[in-house]
């Protein structure tokens, strides 16, 4: 009987070694260690043995059972590892095939630019104030210190409407007086984004419709040095921390002193290139200290209050940042253009 046991043990180990798949191992387990397997059948033979032989046989069969169980687990692990390896090997993908993309949406590039401007000025306490596109001559010109027939009006050709004194705003500066009336007597710190309209030829550089962001700060302690500091900070956040700014004297009827702000060209690092017309500087915005007439029209006494204002064109900023050379692309809304941003 013991010899039979040894024989079973040797035979089973042999078969176990020959098994190379988990399926064969499963069968082996059922046939060997299962409920009606060979080892069990041997156990049942214990009754044929004498009482003296039984403990020895019992010991032996338990040992075989344990050994085979261990051998099985060991073998199973080996086979599983091999199987997994071969499964992995056979299921490799061509990872160069294109992925499955979700349907893509996007914000208009000008919305993206506007949001960047909102965020930077928002951090400095400037809130967004919006005013109408269709404006009166008074808000757009007169109260901003553009008298009728003033040469400065020629700089901005207006669209007139069938209602007398109603025009399409030529700049979002038109909202300055509205904002001041709205906030008086609090200090003012706003930016005024919006669509503007000028009666100009449509070319790659100019459009009859364009967006503008005007800014206005009014308070009892605001200087030209603050204007420089605030706008330089803005330029560095928008175009990079290393940017230099240059303020040049300029003219706007609603500011005095007035300044044009240039930013050192970020394309050529000031070396001179086609975009900056070899000057090393890019013209970014117009600005100045709010004209006393404008302050007074807004309800603020110029003897007590001062302020600064500025205005910029998001299209120009986007054109510079992305090398866009035709302003008409913005309102053409060709998805092949819009989806690049």
């Amino acid at each position, binding site marked *: 009987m013991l010899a039979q046991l040894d024989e079973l043990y040797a035979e089973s180990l042999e078969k176990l070694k020959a098994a190379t798949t988990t399926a064969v191992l499963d069968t082996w387990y059922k046939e060997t260690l299962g409920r009606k397997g060979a080892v069990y059948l041997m156990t049942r033979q214990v009754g044929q043995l004498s009482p003296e032989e039984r403990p020895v046989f019992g010991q032996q069969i338990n040992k075989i059972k344990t050994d085979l169980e261990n051998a099985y687990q060991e073998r199973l692990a080996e086979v599983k590892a091999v199987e997994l390896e071969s499964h992995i090997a056979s299921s490799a993908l061509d990872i160069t095939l294109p992925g499955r993309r979700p349907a893509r949406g*996007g*914000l208009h590039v000008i919305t993206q630019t506007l949001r960047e401007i909102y965020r930077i000025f928002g951090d400095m306490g400037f809130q967004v104030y919006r005013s109408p596109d269709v404006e009166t001559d008074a808000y757009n010109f007169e109260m901003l210190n553009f008298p009728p027939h003033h040469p400065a009006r020629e700089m901005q050709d207006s669209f007139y409407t069938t*209602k007398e004194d109603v025009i399409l705003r030529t700049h979002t500066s038109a909202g300055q007086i509205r904002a001041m009336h709205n906030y008086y007597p609090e200090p003012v710190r706003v930016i005024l984004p919006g669509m503007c309209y000028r009666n100009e030829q449509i070319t790659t550089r100019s459009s009859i419709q364009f967006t503008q962001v005007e800014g206005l700060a009014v308070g009892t302690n605001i200087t030209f040095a603050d204007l420089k500091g605030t706008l330089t900070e803005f330029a560095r956040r928008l175009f990079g921390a290393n940017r230099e700014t240059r303020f040049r004297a300029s003219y706007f009827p609603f500011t005095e002193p007035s300044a044009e702000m240039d930013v050192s060209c970020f394309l050529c690092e000031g070396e001179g290139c086609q975009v900056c017309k070899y000057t090393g500087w890019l013209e970014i915005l117009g600005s100045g200290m709010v004209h006393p007439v404008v302050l007074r029209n807004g309800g603020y006494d110029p003897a007590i209050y001062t302020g600064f204002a500025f205005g910029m064109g998001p299209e120009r900023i986007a054109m510079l940042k992305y090398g866009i050379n035709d302003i008409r692309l913005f309102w053409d809304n060709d998805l092949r253009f*819009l989806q690049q941003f």
Partner: protein
Amino acid sequence: MRVPLSWLNDYVKIDLPVKEVEMILTNAGLEVKTIDYYGLPGADLEWERDNVVLGHILQVEQHPNADKLVLATVEYGADKPEVVVTGAPNLFPYVGQGDIAHLNLYSPLALEGATLYDGHKAELKKTKLKGRELRGVYNRCMLCSEKELGISEEHDGIIIMVKDEYAPAYKAGTPLQDVLGDAVLEIDIIPNIARCASIVGVAREYAALTEQDICYPDYEVVMEGQPLDNRVVITTENAKLNPRFVALLIEGVEQKPSPFWMQYRLRLAGQRPINVVVDISNYVMLEMGQPNHTFDYDFLRQRADEYAPDGPIHINTRLPHEGETLTTLDDITHKLQPYNILVTDPLGNLSLGGVMGGLNSEIKPETKNVLLEAAAWNFINIRRTGTQLGIHTDAAFRFSRGVHPSQALLGAKRAAELLRRLAGGTVANGIIDTYPEPAEPVKVDLNLNYARRLSGLNLSGTEIANLLRRLEFDVTVHAESLTATVPDHRMDIEGGHDLVEELCRVYGYGRIPSTILADTLPPQRGNPTLEQEERIKDILVQAGLQELINFRLTIPERENRLYAGDKTWQTDSADTYVTLTNPISPERSVMRHSILASVMDIAANNSRYQGRIAIFEIGQIYIGQPDELLPQEKTRLSLVLTGQREVPHWQTGDEPPLYDFFDLKGILEHLCDNLQIQVQYEAARHASYRPGRTAQLLLNETPIGMMGEIHPLVVERFGIRIEPGQAVLAADIDLDALIPAIPQAYPYKPLPTYPAVREDLALIVDKTVSAASIEEALLTAGGPLLQEVKLFDVYEGKPIPPGKKSLAYHLTFQSASKTLTDKDVSKNRKRLIQQLSKMGASLRE
């Protein structure tokens, strides 16, 4: 304004490199747009210093073998003069005159090896000068024309420069760069620097900015002629329109070309030389900014013989009579407007004051006696006149921006003196100066604290005064303020703020510190409406839509394409459009009433290239109000879907499923869920949408927009390219109504503690019964334990009887207080089925 640096150098020393001069002027508000170089490094053709020099013409002889060539002997600083073969016709008059050194004729001489433009080529082509035999005479040098040097197109003769008492001290052998080499700055004259529309004007600024003295032109005139007094009388009817009128008479003028130095300056400044009289007039205007006008004196006298045979010429300035016309010297006859100012005599008008001369009184080739006018005009009238008549002369440019009356006398004297010196005229004795109300000097007070507060500069009164004095302000400093008298060439200084700009400019904008706002921060309220609009954009972008920004100018006809065959939609709005009186094109003449129409146009444009179009725009529409000045500006959202729902992928093939009604509805549901807004959809009819596939959106029972499949006729009218079976879906929603309904805060739903029981239920109902009504009935009948009803299948056809449909639902029962038993659920289910059977629904087994 084109400013040759050599000309500028006459009045202020220019000893800095050109680029630095450019920067100084640009930073001070005289923006240099471009720099053109002539002969200097930086020019397309640089005149080599050793090879292109000034030559003195000593003698001109006929070429022995050629009629059309001469031999010029030219001294150029070398050991011996050079004999140059040339065909220049303007040397022929000197042939055979022997030694002509005393005539002081100079000309640019190019030596062998010099690079020049080829004068015989139409385009600018560089060529290297080589010595060669010309009809038997070996020639190695060349006297140059303007074209060969890149100065102008002129190639009819060589440049001849005469050295006389008024010309520069030419010296043979000087490199030409040092004689004619120049850099011309093109300066943008913005409205507040009208005073800089002249070389002297720019020189004044440059002197102030570089702390130098300015050397003004000589404004003295030698008057040796007969008295002018009794010969001309000048009256001005309105001193507001024509504050000053100065006249001088120059007799015996010889009309000839002006000297080369003047012609050259005019050319560099962008003026074509004509003759000495016209050139002097232009030269003085460019030099010191005062435009002036010349009349044919004898013509005026002839007319006076008619109206006052024994009396003086009477010139009067006035506004036009009703119906009066004037023919300007470009031979165009203008109908005059009430604001045109005329220079007239008793017989009629002579010129359009400050804008353009009249044809009849202008200088003619035989004119010998010139009446010179220099006046001051009201800039608004000049501006309106120039704009109305479309005349943009250099004079009108300056007068319409303001020329101070003080300049008229200086300009008149300067021009008269130049006519005396260069045109051989004699100036009649006396100046007629009609200036009934001389301009008072402008005095402006500046509070020193205000100056410091505005500029951010901590300067003393004396320091500020000294900055202003550099710009010729006469300044008196007091304890807390100063008083500045404005120099009389300026018209732009009105108040203390203007002085602050001046002191900042002279101090240098670049030197002013940069500081961070220290003023009180205003209350931070944000802009809630904008923030919600931006949030809606973000949600739609997440859902795969692309934002657009469209033109807001359109025409009603384009928008009416939205309404298929239904006239009632076209009549509501025609007179409420904001309509332009000066549209740039007939296609863009009103402000839009619809965003959807422009989004549809963009869908059409893109349908040529795109398989998937999912686009939206948020923006304003403009509804004119009959009783209000300004229109209502309403914010709306429009979106359009058409084409492929998904991006095509190689695993799913080339034709993914197409967008349909329920994609659109799903996007709107997604939007409202995100915004925590409940919106109802009600079947509706609308002329833009396909009947049976149209819904009205209701918010608290108020309509806020439409959605659905666009009517096939409308799709066709917009020209959207579609495949068979492809629908165009759109929605148009009033955001002014939607946004205020978005809650600021809302309670979250606690996560369930006890497990849910899910049951499926299939119902058979009449086809006409809406899914929404069944869902509502289920939720009502299901009691508080029924947490969710989710439709998962809709089926029609066998074995469902005709006219019926099957709707299958997942029902989720859940309690917040216990685990539900089968008994709890089946009780609910029974009640549900009972209730629904009352609506005619039966259970599908």
